[in-house]
């Protein structure tokens, strides 16, 4: 079973968030990238746009279909990972680190309280994988 870093928080849509002060960096989990398979295309929001919690912040396509990326928190986009736009394979090879997608300046850090820690996410994934 995969190990999910314990310095990250997770939503049930398989996105992770790394919090540094008011900044939240977001990506998808190793479990998600494995489930989707080779990612072929990605679309991310532009800097200065606003992302709502539980709403799509981007879209990806793999050979299996198109998938909306659901944001764990709300905030203004302050940074977008240009490296993954140039080399999309990074999302598959290093999803929890260099495969990050966007950084938000959070508008309500209390939203973090509703997210899962690594242990809770691990249990959630285990349950989902069992029904696969």
């Amino acid at each position: 079973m995969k190990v999910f870093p314990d310095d990250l928080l997770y939503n049930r849509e398989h996105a992770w968030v790394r919090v540094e002060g008011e900044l939240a960096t977001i990506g998808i989990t190793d479990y998600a990238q494995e489930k989707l398979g080779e990612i072929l295309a990605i679309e991310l929001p532009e800097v200065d746009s606003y992302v709502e919690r539980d709403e799509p912040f981007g879209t990806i396509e793999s050979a299996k279909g198109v998938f909306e990326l659901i944001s764990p928190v709300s905030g203004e986009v302050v940074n977008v990972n240009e490296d993954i736009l140039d080399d999309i394979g990074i999302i598959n090879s290093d999803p929890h680190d260099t495969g990050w997608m966007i950084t938000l300046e959070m508008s309500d850090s209390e939203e973090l309280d509703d997210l899962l820690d690594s242990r809770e996410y691990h249990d959630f994934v285990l349950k989902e994988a069992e029904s696969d």
Partner: protein
Amino acid sequence: MIWRFISFKKLNAFENMAIDEAIFRENQRTDTPPTIRFYSWSPPSVSLGYFQATWKEVNVEACRRYSVDIVRRPTGGKAVLHENDLTYAVIASERNPLFPPDILGTYKVISSCVAGGLSELGIEAEMEGEGRSNPDDSLKAACFSSPSRYELLVKKKKICGSAQLRSKGIFLQHGSILVDFDPLKTCALLLPQHGDQTRQAEKLHGSVTSIHDQVGTSVSVENICHVIKNSFEKKLDIKLVEGCLTLEEESLKLQLMSDKYMNDKWNMEGKVQSDGSKNSD
């Protein structure tokens, strides 16, 4: 288990896509039963996959000459010419016990229902297991030239292509079943102007088939809908109850038509101005 069945209609490309997305979005918001819809396209249309580059993948000038509309789907995959096809849309929860949570499993279940219907017409379609090589690189933009896993083939020729969108636990699967097939027109509309289109059409003809090709005579769309609907009911042990759009879906459909699917920015560039699923410039 009861599912909603929205019976066959021939509508324009923009309304067809707006209806499917409206059902999908409402399904994300409320706990509604799964829906199956059958439809065709009038006027004939080309639908593009979500990420496809319109000017690169479609011969826009030829589409205009033939009065063929161009629309971008919310689902993935390649470009499809909808002139002699029957399209289906299935919208359901990923957690519906009839569908395995793994993504390809859903394609497999739906393909087996479509195959069951085709079998009633005397067509033995098989599910593609691991994908088939593309007959020609220059044909790669066209959906029917490149089958993916669990798509339907008859004697190694593709007869039904499908694509999905997933978000917030709901999936929308589009499928296009070829009732008849015109490889020359498909090449003229879906491929760039350069290249020998007669040769490309011959290659496409060698890798694509249709219900008409297989049965040898014309089969009415009503009859095809009937056998596929029955097959869904039988294979999934469900009852398809005829229904229509809810007021909320109807209102969202109108909004999606005007803001997104009738908007050139979406169809040609893959962008919408506001509140759509793509971000503005």
